[in-house]
Structures are given as C-alpha cells and as structure tokens.
C-alpha cells in the first residue's frame, strides 16, 4: 500500500466536489459543536450545584436524634399482651452530644480530617419590629467554623472579628437580613424554642449562594447560644466535620457512628437530590451527544456511499492498473478521516464559541442561586473527547463504503 499516492487521489476527489465535501464536514461540525456546548454547559451546572451544596454543608454531621421511639413500660413487661396506652409522651431527652468537645478534639486528630466544628444549633425566631421570621441560629467557635466553610470569603458585609469581640454579635444570611430589613449595626430580637429572648446586634452578613442557607441561617458565639438555651458550657448539639477528600467522608462517617453511637449524616446522603439530578443530566447529555454524532455519521456514510457509486468506473480503472484492495480502502478512508477531522476541528471552534456566548449570557436565578450568568465549564478533556468521537464516527462511517469500493469487480464495470 502506498499512502502518499492514496492521499493524493483522495485529495483530488475531495477538491473535485468541494460543495459535497463541505456539506459532509458541516454535518460533523454541527454534531461536535452541539456536543461541546451541551457537555460544557451540563457539566458546568453539575459542578456549580455540587460546589455550592458541598461548600455550604458539612461532609459529615454528627448529632443526637431526640425523637426516638420507645416502647411503653407495659409493652416491655407483657410483650404479647393486649396493651393500650394513651398519650404516651417522648422521654425527656436532650439533644446534647455528651462530651462533645472531647469527641471533636479526638476526631480532629484523625487522619484525613480537614477541620471539626462543635456547635449548638437551634430553631429561632428573628424579630425586627413587626417583622417575624423563623430561621436557625448556630452557636459556633468562629475560627473553627471559618476553617470549615471559609466564612471570610462568604462575608458580604461586616467582619468575623466583630463577632469574636462582641458576645452579642450575630452574622446572618444575606437574604434573611434583607427580609428582616436589617444591616450591620442593627439590632434583632431572637426568640428560642424554649421561650427565652435576647437582643443581638448584626455584625455581618454572609452569602453561600444557596437559597436554603442564606434564607435561614445565622451565626452567633457558642457561649451566647448556650446561655440563650439555658444550658451549661459543655452543651453541644452538632459536630460538623470536613474531610480533605469528600469521598472519604462516607466510610469515615460510618466509623464515627459505631465509635460514638450518635447519628451521622454524610454529604452524599444529605444531597441525594442534587447527586441524582447530576446523574440524570449526565445521562441526558451523553444520549443527546451520541445521537448527534450518530446522525452526523450517517450523513458521512451517505455521502461516502454516493462518492463510491459515482467513482465506480474510476475504481475499476485503478484496480485494473494495479491498485490493490488496501489502496482503494485507503483512498476512501482518507477522505472520510479528512472530513471527520477538519469538520471536527471546526466543530470544536464553534462549540467553544457557543459555550463562551452561553457563559456570558445573563441569567437571573433569583435568591435561590448566586449566579449572574450560565455556569459553563471549559475543560480540554471534553474537546479531546469530542474530536475523538467525531473521528471514530467518521472512520466507521467511511470504512463500510470504502470496503464496498474495494470489492468492486473491475471486469463487470470495464465490460461496459
């Protein structure tokens, strides 16, 4: 087989039918451009949702669940009897994690742990004049919490140091602050579920970009919240843990649960909806992309088939003058590869352009997500993948017509 002469013949064929070549190329171009655009956008959305969800939630949350069912005494004594108990109340149990600080210090020393933040979290009412809003208030050690959630970066107004120095300080989510119509320096009355109230001063606002957090959450100092709940200084309800590798959180959480016998919840469980959505979007992206490429492939197959039929006399002459089957396959396969490769490259360019346009298109997600434009990822691996798919599709689409061409029987054609 002689590649250079096959290339020369292929080039002549392609140039002789420029319009047909261009149309075949555009089929691939369109397929790849859409593939790039779709995958960049979908992956951008996935990444954005995952990041915002993961950033705002702990990798592992350890807590004590209070609403545990318990059998009545009579049920325990007469398990098979006909027992009727009216109005059984839950046992008075505290949400406290016993030795919470010691547990936190121990966990912090474990390998692979980025940071641990023991805290007291409770429901609360925020009052500012006639406005009443429900939310949560977390009593935290600011430095430890900052290590987990990079609060410094999340602050919109105020400062973290103000919270450290002011025992009555409060940092609240931006949306919550807006709804309460308070700014840094304003006072807010906070009512706890047990009925105590306390006036706290807003020293900062933060925004995670996740509606459910910015809408409800606020931070105060740990001793302040303990006092509001009338608890002792060792009272801790939650331990938030961040790992260096989020995937390690799942086995680590299970281990913690068996060690300390408290409930643990990992990020994957807490964000099942987001992860399921991601799977569905991925599936959708690949199905649509592959469909586009297959359609483009059939386009090339058709055009190559037509080319072979048009060139059947030429093929017979070439075979008669000594070109063997591999030469003929090479001639037509080179044409298909050229179409696939150049169409693919063009598609990458157009795909990049479309993704870029999308990434600067304004998009208002309201209070739910803090983005101004569509999230788009520009990852080289998708471009490589697109080109690879494009070339493989064209090789397959070009191979069958060229094999047919190679099997042309010159005698039956040359007879006339």
């Amino acid at each position, binding site marked *: 087989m002689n590649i250079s002469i096959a290339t020369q013949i292929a080039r002549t064929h392609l140039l002789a039918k420029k319009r047909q070549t261009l149309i075949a190329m555009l089929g691939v171009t369109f397929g790849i451009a859409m593939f790039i655009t779709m995958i960049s956008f979908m992956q951008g959305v996935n990444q954005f949702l995952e990041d915002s969800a993961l950033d705002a939630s702990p990798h592992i949350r350890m807590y004590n669940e209070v609403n545990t069912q318990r059998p009545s005494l009579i049920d325990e004594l007469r398990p098979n009897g006909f027992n009727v108990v009216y109005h059984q109340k839950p046992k008075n149990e505290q949400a406290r994690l016993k030795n919470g600080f010691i547990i936190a210090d121990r966990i912090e020393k474990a390998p692979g742990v980025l940071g641990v933040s023991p805290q007291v979290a409770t429901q609360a009412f925020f009052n500012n004049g006639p406005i009443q809003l429900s939310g949560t208030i977390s009593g935290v050690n600011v430095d430890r919490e900052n290590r987990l959630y990079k609060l410094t970066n999340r602050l919109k107004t105020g400062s973290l140091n103000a919270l450290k120095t002011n025992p009555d300080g409060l940092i609240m989510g931006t949306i919550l602050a807006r709804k309460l119509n308070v700014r840094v320096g304003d006072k807010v009355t906070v009512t706890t579920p047990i009925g105590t109230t306390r006036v706290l001063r807003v020293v900062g606002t933060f925004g995670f970009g996740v509606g459910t957090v910015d809408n409800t959450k606020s931070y105060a100092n740990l001793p302040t919240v303990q006092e509001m709940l009338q608890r002792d200084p060792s009272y801790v309800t939650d331990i938030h843990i961040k790992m260096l590798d989020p995937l390690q959180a799942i086995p680590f959480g299970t281990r913690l649960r068996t060690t300390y016998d408290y409930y643990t919840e990992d990020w994957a469980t807490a964000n099942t909806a987001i992860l399921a959505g991601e799977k569905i979007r991925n599936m959708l992206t690949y199905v649509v992309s592959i469909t586009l490429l297959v359609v483009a492939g059939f386009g090339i197959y058709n055009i190559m088939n037509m080319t072979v039929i048009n060139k059947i006399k030429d093929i017979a*002459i070439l075979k008669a*003058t000594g070109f*063997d089957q591999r*030469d003929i396959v090479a001639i037509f396969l080179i044409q298909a590869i050229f179409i696939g490769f150049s169409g693919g490259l063009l598609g990458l360019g157009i795909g990049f352009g479309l993704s870029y346009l999308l990434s600067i298109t304004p998009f208002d997600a309201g209070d739910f997500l803090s983005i101004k434009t569509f999230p788009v990822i520009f990852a080289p691996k998708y471009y490589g993948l697109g080109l690879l798919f494009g070339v493989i599709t064209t090789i397959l689409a070009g191979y069958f017509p060229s094999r047919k061409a190679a099997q042309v029987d010159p*005698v039956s054609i040359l*007879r*006339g």
Partner: protein
Amino acid sequence: MNPVLSAQHLNKYFYDPDKFHVLRDVTFDVQPGEFLSIVGKSGCGKSTLLYLLSTMDTDYEGQITMAGTKLTGRSQDFLSHFRNEHLGFVFQFHFLLPEFSTLQNVMLPGLKLGKYPAKEVEERAMEKLRLIGMADFARKPASKLSGGQQQRVAIARALINDPTIIMGDEPTGNLDRANSENVFAIFRDLASKGQTIITVTHDSDFAAGTDRIIEMSDGQIIAYHENKIQ
C-alpha cells in the same frame, strides 16, 4: 524463444442465468514482440478470454503463465502488483480518471509501482506523452480531452511501467475512422519497437494490420492467420 504468455486448456463457465460453457479448451502461446489480435463475432468469448489473460477474472479452469510466472491460483494482491508491473490496459470505454490532469493519469500507475521517484516518473510520463503526441495536453484535465485524445493518453498510461504486454479491449471500438487509424498507428509503432500487444477487436482493418490473428467462435479457437507485414 520462450513464449511471453502461455494459455493452457482454458475453460470458463457463466452460471447466470444458466450454466454456459463460454470458453472451451483454449490453448495458445504469444511470442515476445508479437502484435496479436483476437477476432470473432459478438458473444464468441473473445473479451472473456482477454479478461482471463488480464488476471482480473480468476474464475476459470486451465493455466495461464506470463513472463515466466504462473498466474493461476495467485492472491488478488499478488495479481494487482503483477498487473501494475507487467500489464498495460487500453479499454473501449472509461479511459481516464476525469478529476486528474492528463499527466497525472499517466503517472498514477508509475507512482503506484514506486520503482522510480516521483520526479522521474513525471519525466517518464512526459516522454510517453511525447511518444503519442499528447505532450501539449499534459496539464489539461482529462475530462476536457476528446475521446480520441483520451484513448491516446490511455495508451501512454499503459506504457508508463514498460509493461511486458499491452492488452487492448476494442481499443478503437468507440472511435471514429481518423482516430482509429491514429491509435492503430501508435500500436503499430510500438510493436515495431518490440512491444508485445494483444488486442480484442472486431475491426477487420485493425486486425489485418496485426502480426497474427486468432479467430474465435463459440468459445473455441477456430483459426490462426499470420499476416505478412512488409
């Protein structure tokens, strides 16, 4: 002298639509430098015989030996290479590749053989075009040439690898009188320089000018005529 081509007991059948014995025990030799023509009525099997000799049709019984090489039972790739090196073809229809220039058409089999570098193949192609008087048209696209011109270029292409044998299938069958004479003159000239040529023709004037005529009927050779060329 050893024959350059030897056909031994060739038998060929067509199966479609019915089994038909198209060649019956055809045996003959061709000497080097001979200008041979095969004549006969339509359907007598002369074209079929030529395609067997051309190695493109391998479905036959008997044995073909060419240039000292037994060709029966060889692989397609071997035969392709053999055609490239030893055979030149001139067909009745479909002369040239229309997208290529005259020169490229002549060069292609030479480039395929790869015996000489491209530059030298081009020089040789120009030389062959001069031989048939088509050098002025070298850069023209083949599709712009007339039928007679194309046929002459096809002869140049057949010559590019200095083939052992040139085979023509009704090389003048589709040409007018003037062009036919022109093409015949070229063949005659080549034959006088020692080129072996086998043509199938039903042009009696053409056949009369060749060294030897094999006359066929119903798949058999019925007569040989030696022409005494002055």
